[in-house]
């Protein structure tokens, strides 16, 4: 039997043997085991050895050189901790880096942080940085840079979503140039995973002093340098010498903005104007399958849409109205018709069946008669008029799903008008409208989203949901290492949220992309945090 060892060389966390035992007894699956022990600082190679599997290796010898043309929106990047889309993070992540890296299989691996060791109670996390890392301006990368970033994220005046995500972080203690410690107010297992959130790239300690606009002074520790940047047009990255890690294969990565119309992106791919389109819609799948020399990429992802109701605004301040909306909706049908059945039905609590902490609650039942009765009780005997605001931010499937729901709730007497706005007009009001449809990107752990979106005062709490009971249940779950026990603790988290009827969350949408057959070494990341360092052109 192989022995588990940590990346730091220190003894493993006291809960690791128990988690290993659960895996060996078959009580948790391989994926849950790998994810949990790597979060606790165990090296991926030794964890794989215990499972008897080996990490997927390359089948062909990569070819050096060439420029990959990546079809994606090129958006403004000022302060990276403030970005709200994943597209700019893909430009960033090849130039600046994160402390950790969550791979395509949701395993957390070292990046700028070479190792981490949590205390037994998960409230103290000791990190050690990679040695000999240099910034592109020649400065040495040290814990001072890390502390600068984390302190900015959690500062009282911070407007970043990181503020609520890292609300458990009390302090960053610099031990020496390569070691630092995070002190938390409550146990949190997901810290290493959270450090790979797209708003967490590590910037140079003088970022604010030098103007606070990253594209004007794009210093990074990553394998590429930003050489050209034009919002709405293109961003060009060129491989830089002296990178501390494994050198990437491509000489250049060119991000080409093809607009918001996915059909145009597919045409560009078909006519060899781009090599990779990382996000396409379900309506494009049939077309992509017929294109010669193009590969369809697909993967399960915890990305979803939430049709949420703001409990602080009429008529949703009455829980009977919210419950009626939920009871009148049929999530399975919305998946089948709105997303062509290409995903997994969701259960109105924002935890996916494939999240490691998921607890299976009894299935939801549609009950139009009860919905009508609740509406009548709430004073809407003759039905209710509501307007759902949406922006089709990811494509028309959002609107398609809303139209299916519109038909369903009409049976209960809810006359739902769709207020479809252009995405640019939707984002300024996405968390202000009483009734809105919001796309939520993939996060490897459900608690990461729950923290942001449903904890009282959370940065992106669009439903204005606030419950001390929910917060306490969430705190309890985030501090449990044992995946089985954590899943059981999540039962109350899921149930409280489901009972509060905060949202209709129809389904978890699978992710799709397309690329030219000449692109190799690329896998679609479930969160579209696409890593291009392994990609090459045949």
């Amino acid at each position, binding site marked *: 039997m192989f022995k588990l060892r940590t990346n730091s060389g220190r003894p493993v966390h006291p809960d690791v043997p128990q988690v290993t035992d659960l895996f060996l007894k078959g009580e948790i699956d391989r994926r849950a085991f790998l994810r949990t022990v790597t979060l606790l600082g165990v090296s991926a190679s030794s964890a794989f050895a215990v499972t008897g599997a080996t990490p997927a290796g390359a089948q062909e010898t990569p070819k050096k050189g060439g420029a990959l043309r990546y079809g994606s929106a090129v958006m403004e990047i000022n302060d990276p901790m403030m970005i709200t889309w994943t597209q700019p993070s893909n430009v960033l992540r090849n130039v600046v880096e994160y402390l950790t890296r969550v791979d395509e299989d949701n395993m957390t691996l070292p990046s700028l942080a070479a190792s981490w060791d949590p205390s037994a109670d998960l409230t103290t996390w000791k990190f050690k940085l990679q040695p000999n890392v240099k910034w592109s301006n020649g400065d040495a990368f040290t814990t001072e840079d890390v502390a600068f970033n984390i302190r900015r994220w959690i500062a009282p005046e911070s407007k970043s979503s990181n503020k609520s995500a890292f609300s458990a972080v009390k302090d960053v203690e610099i031990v020496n140039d390569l070691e630092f410690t995070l002190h938390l107010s409550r146990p949190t297992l997901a810290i290493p995973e959270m450090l790979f959130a797209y708003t967490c790239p590590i910037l140079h300690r003088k970022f604010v002093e030098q103007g606070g606009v990253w594209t004007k002074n794009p210093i990074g520790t990553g394998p590429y340098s930003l050489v050209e940047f034009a919002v709405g047009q293109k961003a060009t990255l060129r491989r830089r010498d002296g990178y501390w890690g494994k050198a990437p294969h491509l000489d250049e990565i060119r991000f080409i903005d093809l607009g918001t119309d*996915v*059909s145009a992106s*597919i045409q560009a791919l078909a006519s060899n104007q781009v090599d990779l389109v990382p996000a396409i*819609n379900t*309506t*494009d799948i*049939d*077309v992509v399958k*017929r294109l010669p020399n193009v590969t369809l990429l697909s993967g399960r992802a915890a990305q979803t849409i939430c049709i949420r109701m703001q409990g602080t605004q009429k008529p949703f301040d009455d829980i009977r109205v919210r419950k009626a909306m939920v009871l009148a909706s049929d999530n399975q*049908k919305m998946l089948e*018709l*709105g997303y*062509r059945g290409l995903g997994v039905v969701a259960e109105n609590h924002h935890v996916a069946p494939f999240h490691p902490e998921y607890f299976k609650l009894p299935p939801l039942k549609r009950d139009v008669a009860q919905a009508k009765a609740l509406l009548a009780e709430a004073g809407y005997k003759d039905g209710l008029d509501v307007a759902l605001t949406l922006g*089709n931010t990811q494509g*028309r499937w959002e*609107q*398609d799903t*809303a*139209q*299916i729901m*519109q*038909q369903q709730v009409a049976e209960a007497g809810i006359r739902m*008008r*769709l*207020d*479809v706005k*252009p995405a640019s007009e939707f984002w300024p009001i996405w968390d202000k409208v009483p009734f809105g449809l919001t796309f939520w990107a993939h996060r490897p752990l459900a608690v990461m989203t729950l923290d942001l979106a449903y904890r009282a005062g959370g940065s992106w709490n669009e439903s204005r949901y606030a419950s001390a009971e929910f917060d306490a249940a969430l705190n309890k779950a985030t501090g449990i290492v044992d995946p089985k026990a954590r899943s059981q603790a999540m039962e109350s988290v899921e149930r409280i949220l489901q009972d509060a009827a905060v949202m209709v969350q129809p389904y978890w949408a699978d992710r799709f992309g397309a690329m030219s057959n000449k692109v190799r070494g690329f896998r679609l990341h479930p969160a579209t945090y696409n890593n291009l360092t392994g990609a090459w052109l045949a």
Partner: protein
Amino acid sequence: MRNLGRALRRPAAAIGFAMVSVWVACALFAPWLAPYDPLKSQVPLQFPFDRAPDGGHFWLGTDLLGRDILSRLIHGARTVVFWAGLAASSAYIVGITGGLCAGFYRGITDRVLSFLANVVLSFPVLVLYILIIVTLGASGLNIVLAVTFASAPAIFRIVRALSIDIASRDFVSAAITQGENAVRIMLVDILPNATGPLVVDACLRLGYIAITIGTLGFLGLGLPPPTPDWGGMVNEGRGMAMVFPHLVVFPCIAISSLMLGLSLLADGLREASRSGSRA
């Protein structure tokens, strides 16, 4: 009506009239003609002639959400005919009122109104539509407003030119000398003599407005979903057109046939009015 009768003796105009009539009939009797509820989702992406769950047929197939395309086209005719008719009427009311006043009063009234019309006409029409709809939001009334704003100046110019010509004739001078009310002169003496060219223009303009409503729908600025809207149907289906061409072909045929019908009818009316004048 006499002109219409003369025009319908020409085959092209008769065909145009028939095409327009079919769509008007669809608009009027949509609930009875459509085989299914145009908003009801049934089986997605069925091809033309595929069987429906109730044993009937989806004669033109179904869309991505499983809605019967034929039913949506028939109800879409109602959308186009109603809103295009309303928008054209509104544009004509504004354009005719302005044109009559400018042509009859001339002087400062003419200069101010002509200046305003020229300012609006100097903008590209589509840009103007998009600006108005994006600012005010997509709704039927806002489409009417946008079409009125963009089309009224062109109608104004036609009516103004006709009014200047007619106002210089003896019977108008006689009416003025008799002390007739200005509004009465404009409505009773001038306007009826300007209707011939205006009817021809109206036919063509209705077609353009139908195309505009389709274009706005295509750009995602048309009537809010789930209203059946031909342009919106083309927009919804174009991404999958390579595999499911029926999603776009039938709405395109609907738009083209209405436009062609109105053009043929307008040509017929123009010819009929010319031959009438010669007679």
